[in-house]
């Protein structure tokens, strides 16, 4: 282990963000009250970092003694974070000005959150994942409560913090269990141990019986899932060098640890049943921050998720795959069905984001290369369309938090045809209508699920996305087919328009020519 210059070069995008963050802090303390400068510097930092990440797509290397893994994977996510980060900054300017909260701290927080995200995506060690998650989450807690005079915003931040801290505890405990059983927190080491650990016998019968009664499990799950969950290899006794009893215990502890790590990440991606915080937090937080949370933070959590699923575990575990499949199905069903009854657009998008987490999880559950590629594509596509939608919500939101109801969008097409068309585009993409990006995302992950013999999951996915067409379309219907007084208060910020245009372009571009 030792520090090398190449470590910094390999992590250029990360260090650019770090440097930018520090510069903005210094600038702010030097000449306080010039948020415009912070705005420009942060934006430049994000763009530079993004460009460096594009340049780094080809190199594959580990750095910092194997703690970080750099290459196409981490840099792909870094690009997504820099893109969403810079778009968030663009969107935030006029929004914050309108609410009289245009302060540099917003940009500093976004930058630090992005650092955490890049760390998560380049992690090759559970400790780095944890570090990244905390850096990101703490920044986001503050961002959620950025409007400190607003009760809503405070409530949002507090809820996010309490529940987030709660979930983090489980994550950390899971990491500890994995370390205890595998003897390392490094992905590569664990990856070598994982097959042996997961091939052993389950716990002795007495322990199993002490758990919940069988009926609970049977009632909760379709038979096919339960049956499919037991590949022969799992049942057979392990061939690792350890004595059978000890190996069994270590294996179970390992899996329990993984389960808790999955819980922690499922909380971050807002997958059911760990989704409850999302609607409240999304609703209360300032809209650009919500957009950032819903896209970049979710992308980061998926970045970590994919790393753990593929780099750490490998694609061999039926138990974990089926667990993920159940969580995915639950998220798709809950998210989509509940979204129908929402009248507040931010809450609707929150439930929609839960549903999309479900779609992406299906890709991970499929545990094949198609799934991995599908999730990566989906993350990018989802980020563009959701951020675009939040950008438009931020334009229309008013001081008293009014105009967040979907009915308030009536007649938008007559007043602002371009904005209405852009929102319609995002809604169609979210609903998964080709040739937009949202369609291909779904197509890839469902294809992966079918290939992994999880056709039932693909069917749940397609059926629920069918339901989703209803609430996405309702927004379009209200905008186009209803008379109303939807109006934009004041001037529409130029930077927001640029952000919307970029999102719209990408949604079409990713779909027409992926």
């Amino acid at each position: 282990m030792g520090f090398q210059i190449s470590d910094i070069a390999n992590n250029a995008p990360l260090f650019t963000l770090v440097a930018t963050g520090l510069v903005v802090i210094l600038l702010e303390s030097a000449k306080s009250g010039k948020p415009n400068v912070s705005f420009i510097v942060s934006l430049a930092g994000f763009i530079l970092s993004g460009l460096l990440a594009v340049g780094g797509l080809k190199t594959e290397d580990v750095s910092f003694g194997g703690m970080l893994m750099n290459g196409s994977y981490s840099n792909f996510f870094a690009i997504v974070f820099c893109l969403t980060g810079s778009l968030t900054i663009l969107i935030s300017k006029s929004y914050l000005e309108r609410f009289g909260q245009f302060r540099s701290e917003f940009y500093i927080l976004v930058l630090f959150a992005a650092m955490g995200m890049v760390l998560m995506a380049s992690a090759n060690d559970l400790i780095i994942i944890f570090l990244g998650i905390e850096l990101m989450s703490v920044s986001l807690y503050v961002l959620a409560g950025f409007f400190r005079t607003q009760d809503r915003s405070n409530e949002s931040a507090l809820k996010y913090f309490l529940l987030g801290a709660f979930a983090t505890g489980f994550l950390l405990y899971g990491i500890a269990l994995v370390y205890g059983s595998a003897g390392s927190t490094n992905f590569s080491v664990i990856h070598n141990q994982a097959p042996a650990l997961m091939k052993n016998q389950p716990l002795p019968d007495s322990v199993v019986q002490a758990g919940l009664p069988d009926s609970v499990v049977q009632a909760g799950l379709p038979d096919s899932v339960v049956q499919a969950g037991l590949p022969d290899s799992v049942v057979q006794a392990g061939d690792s060098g350890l004595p059978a009893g000890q190996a069994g215990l270590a294996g179970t502890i390992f899996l329990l640890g993984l389960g808790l790590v999955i819980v922690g990440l499922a909380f971050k991606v807002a997958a059911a049943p760990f989704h409850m915080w999302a609607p409240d937090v999304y609703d209360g937080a300032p809209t650009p921050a919500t957009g950032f949370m819903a896209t970049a933070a979710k992308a980061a959590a998926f970045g970590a998720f994919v790393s753990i699923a593929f780099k750490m575990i490998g694609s061999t575990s039926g138990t974990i795959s089926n667990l993920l499949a159940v969580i995915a199905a639950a998220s798709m069903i809950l998210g989509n069905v509940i979204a129908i009854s929402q009248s507040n657009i931010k809450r609707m998008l929150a439930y929609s984001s839960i549903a999309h987490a479900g779609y992406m999880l299906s890709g991970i559950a499929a545990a094949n290369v198609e799934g991995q590629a599908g999730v990566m594509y989906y993350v990018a596509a989802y980020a563009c369309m959701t951020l675009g939608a939040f950008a438009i919500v931020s334009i229309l939101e008013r001081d008293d938090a009014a105009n967040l109801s979907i009915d308030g969008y009536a007649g938008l097409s007559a007043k602002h045809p371009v904005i209405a068309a852009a929102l319609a585009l995002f809604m169609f993409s979210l609903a998964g209508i080709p040739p937009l990006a949202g369609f291909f995302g779904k197509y890839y992950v469902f294809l992966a699920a079918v290939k992994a013999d999880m056709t039932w999951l693909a069917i749940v996915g397609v059926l629920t996305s069918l339901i989703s067409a209803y609430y996405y379309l309702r927004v379009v219907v209200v905008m186009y087919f209803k008379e109303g007084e939807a109006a934009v208060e004041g001037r529409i910020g130029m930077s927001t328009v640029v952000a919307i245009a970029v999102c719209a372009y990408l949604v079409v571009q990713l779909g027409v020519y992926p």
Partner: protein
Amino acid sequence: MITFAPLLVLFPLLGFLFNGVFGWKIKNEKLLGIVGSGSVGLSFILASVIFVQMLGVEESARKQSVEVFTWVSTFTGSSSSFSASVAYQIDQLSILMALIVTGVGFLIHVYSIGYMRGDPGFWRFFAYLNLFIFAMLNLVLADNFLLMFLGWEGVGLCSYLLIGFWYDRKFDIGGEEAGSTYTGHAGMKAFIVNRIGDFGFLMGMLLIFVTFGSLRYDSVFSNATIMSVGTPVLTWITLFLFVGATGKSAQIPLHVWLPDAMAGPTPVSALIHAATMVTAGVYMVARCSILFALAPTSMLVVAIIGALTAFCAATIGLVQNDIKKVLAYSTVSQLGYMFLAMGVAAFSAGIFHLMTHAFFKALLFLGSGAVIHAMHEEQDIQKMGGLKKYLPITHKTFVAGALALAGFPLLSGFFSKDEILWNAFIGEHGSPLLWLIGATAAAFTAFYSFRLVTLTFDGKERFDHHHLHPHEAPATMYVPLVILAVLSVVGGLVGIPHVSQLEHWLDPVFDPAKIKLMQTEHEGFGLELLFMVVSGTIALAGIWAARKVYLERPEVAEQYASRFKKLYRLLWNKYFVDEGYNAVAVRPIVKGSDFLLWKGFDVAVIDGALDGSAAFVNKIASVLRKIQTGVAQSYATAIVGGILFVLTWIVLR
């Protein structure tokens, strides 16, 4: 010329871009109309040139594929080879479809110039129409399933936009629960019902890719030919695809959207909801004929659904009073015939009927548009009558269309319908029962089409003369009517059995399927002739009965309606299918979303869990309660519940 095939698709796209981007600034309707219709006209000319050229080459050289660009290719590092191109396949089937789409489409565009005159949304209308033609051409010319799906969704989107075109107008869904609703909602209904169909298509497509490793027609179909009949996966694929077809082509049980779709402007009904889009399902089944041929179960399902739809829709058509509703149910019914043809492996006959239907149904819709135009938006045929002296051209063309629809001997509809019925009777996959259902529906068809003609154009004038002065439509409207009328009359000649060439023209497309089905040519010419006579007699009888009842003894209809009150009510309410869906699906989902899952699960159950569930949960919850009040603690409880689930899952794996 075939290398220019992509231009076929490009012209309407350019027209769409022109009208869509600049349209709102251009106040000149003439220019907008010319660009809109001209782009489709150019495509039609190009399609005709390609068609003529194809006639001149060897049969084996008629099928060609033109790639424009690679649309989707695999990700780096992925082992699967998922790729799809924007590529167009020109063959006997697709060029025929392209001719129908652009030809009928062009006439309807021209008609729309007159029909939409003065509408503030004139440019929007033409932009949508062009976009529709673009999507439809992608659907029929695509050389892979993905591009076909793009067109499939695209036409659905345009249909949605055009149904809700006059979004502020009220419109009556009919039946007993009749309440006015906005056209925008009709559009939404169409869209959502179509999404159910799309689900089938998408699942079929996924399974095709998993099974064959490609989405290109060529590789899929050639790989399919070496599979054996009755392979289960093929049955699943075809059933899923057929679900897609029932959605798009308004077959039972997904037919409910089409009658409501009549809320859109009449040219839209003619183009999208009669002549082209709704036939996409039929085209898709025909295109995948080889897959269906390998799945006898699916064939049977297709035939039964087709026959039932043909019958039920025809019976509903008997009692409706809205001129467009009658035509809508007629369309559903005729589409049923086409699926019946597919199901009994009479693929060419089905496509033949698709073509003749496009002619006469477009004609009937446009004619009804002229009537509605003349009557100042009145659509109730009970409030019309005696219009033939005011609208002579419309009347004559409408009668020609109705005769073709009824199957009057020697007109286009006669030959195509007869061929389907003949195949339903004699084919290996047919049965006398299917024939009987089809033939009964044919009698109803003849009856309702002449009920429509008689109530609209003959008899006493039942409208208010003081307010209405019906007048003939302008030339841009009646010229297309005349052309379509001619086609409706003579269009059948291309498909006379044993005489003409259409069947042989399409043979190469359907041969692989026919080989699998081991279908033999049926000799028995005499029997076929007898069936023709029977068909003709049925048509004539239906027409005669309708004339007799509605011209001479209108009271008979009412007597029957009151004598068979229950039956009448059933038909008038369209078998209560909408009500059924509302009760079974729509309301429960909406309510369920509201109360059960959101208020119930997310709020109440979790709160309730605090008090009622296991002590362990309570203990954690009470610790939390000290930290935080309000709902956050119940969320945490949910998390604990989730964690318990995860851990139990792993321990019990």
